[in-house]
């Protein structure tokens, strides 16, 4: 508890991080609580009301089939955040496991770091594109089109983004092993599992939190980029990137329709990054290092 309180206190003076946190909170409220107040379904078609501007009935206008833009933005934002939240545990789990084991057990270090390097050497965006286009179909068959796409995109992003966490963790663990208390713990016969859990993990948590936060921003950007290329979620499924993609043809007639999802992507990523950078500054005694 004391640890957490001090983190908060250290984060408080970081103005950028605080702003980011507030913006993020507002976004979460908008996408999670919004649908409870604004009860139009994002897929409801009202063909008489298509291509409308701002109005009381549709505060942010409607799209080419008369679907409410506000409801669609809420749904899109929810998916973007959900993707980011779902990618995080994969990144942390995989990267954490590899990093911890490689750092702690000398024998595993070589193999695991080779593996990490192999993954770093893979052309990630092309591979991501490949995985998403090629495997959308079988997964969609088993989990339904949106579900399949979600699982696929989360897995694909997760599988291609754990390496940074692994490297950071390995470095931290290696440095930690030199410190006195680990030696002491080992001397009194603490077993490796307990050692990792009780002594190592708590001491390397902060850089991992930072990496995870920054990773969330990347996940959001990647998901939007995929949808923007038309390769993410299925066409009838509103995500922020998809909304932007769909609005591009009609950008001149209805600029707002492209601007709103675009702005929402930018603000979300910026806020997450601001929080991540703030955390980094707050947690790193030698502030500013990588």
């Amino acid at each position, binding site marked *: 508890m004391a640890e957490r309180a001090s983190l908060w206190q250290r984060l408080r003076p970081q103005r*950028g991080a605080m702003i980011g946190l507030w913006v993020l909170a507002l976004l979460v409220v908008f996408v999670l609580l919004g649908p409870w107040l604004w009860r139009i379904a994002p897929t409801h078609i009202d063909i008489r009301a298509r291509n409308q501007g701002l109005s009381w009935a549709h505060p942010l206008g409607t799209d080419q089939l008369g679907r409410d833009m506000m409801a669609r933005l809420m749904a899109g934002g929810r998916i973007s955040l959900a993707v980011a939240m779902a990618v995080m545990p994969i990144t942390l789990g995989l990267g954490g496991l590899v990093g911890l084991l490689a750092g702690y057990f000398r024998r595993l270090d070589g193999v695991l770091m080779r593996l990490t*390097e*192999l993954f*770093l*050497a*893979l*052309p*990630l*965006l*092309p*591979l991501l*594109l*490949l*995985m998403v*286009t*090629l*495997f959308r*179909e*079988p997964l969609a068959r088993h989990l339904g089109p949106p579900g399949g796409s979600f699982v696929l995109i989360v897995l694909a992003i997760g599988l291609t983004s754990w390496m940074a966490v692994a490297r950071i963790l390995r470095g931290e663990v290696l440095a930690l092993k030199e410190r006195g208390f680990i030696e002491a713990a080992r001397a009194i016969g603490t077993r490796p599992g307990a050692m990792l859990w009780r002594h190592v993990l708590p001491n390397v948590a902060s850089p991992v939190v930072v990496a995870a936060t920054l990773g969330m*921003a990347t996940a959001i*950007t990647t998901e*939007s*980029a995929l949808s*923007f*290329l038309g*390769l993410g979620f299925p066409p009838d499924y509103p995500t922020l990137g998809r909304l*932007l993609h769909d609005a*591009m043809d009609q*950008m*001149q007639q209805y*600029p707002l329709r*492209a601007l709103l999802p*675009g702005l929402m*992507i*930018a603000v979300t*990523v*910026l806020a997450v*990054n*601001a929080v991540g*950078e703030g955390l980094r500054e707050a947690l790193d005694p*030698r*502030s*500013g*290092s*990588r």
Partner: protein
Amino acid sequence: MLNLALRRLAMAVPTLLCISLVIFLLLEAAPGDPLGEMPLTVPPEVKERMRAALGVGEPWPLRYLLFLKQFFWVEPLHWLDRLLGTDFGAGQQRLISYQSRAPVFDVIAERLPQTLAVVGLSYLLGVLVALPVAILSARHPQGWFDRIAGSLAMLGYSLPTFLTGLVLIWVLAIWLKWLPSVYDTTLRVTDWASLLRQLRQMAMPVAVLTLYNAAQISRYLRAAMLDNLRQDHVRTARAKGLGEGAVLCRHVLRNSLSSMVTVIALGLPTVFGGAIITEQLFKVNGLGQLLILAINAHDLPMVMALTFVFALLIVLCTLLADLLYGMLDPRIRHG
């Protein structure tokens, strides 16, 4: 030094083989049909024959070995022939694209200049912008310049390139009509007028990528320099009473050089990957656009070759970074 180079090179080969197998199996496992998008007026018997002509029916280990042979043996021979006018590779089947039936590497060679022009230039500009920014930022960490530069950099790498690009197209090409909206790959630069046209059509993609690259690189460089600033010899230099500028130039910069080179070399391949979106957005018919086209058409040889070329690039750049680091870092050189 040579020893290190050879050792690293020897390690790169299995890595590359592993990667090629991973990509190949990924493609193999994927459903879909290169002839899927064909009009329905083509009868199934004809489709079946065309499929056979593409060699789709062979078992996969055979096709994988054939790919390796074509990539590592036939292709180099072919280019050697072209260079020297010999005919070692004559009669050997090169890797052929399903879409155009043209040798995959001829198409890649055709498209490389566009990608290099746009991506390469923007990377160069990104480095040129990032270097001074990083140095000035590191000089007074948390100073006013560092804060402003830091915020701008965060903005730069937080804004997805497809967003900044879209805004630029909208304002400069559609609204103001200052710049062309279609990238003309057939343009030959022969005089000042055509050079101007080339610069005009490159302006937007280069600007977008430069912004992104500069933000990324400056962040890493600043961190690398700060690490150096905390080194003991810098403290000693400061203690000796050297001015901050002199410390920065004589001690920090010189010692940061190795990490800078590493950062720059390692960043290069990711930029190629990232250019996929920019090329798509600005209609630059380069390698990235080719990849998307090939993926959509299930043109497996093309996808395979392109992804592998990207992987090759990454491995080579990593190798380069390692070697340069070894050469530039005094500790490693003497040790």
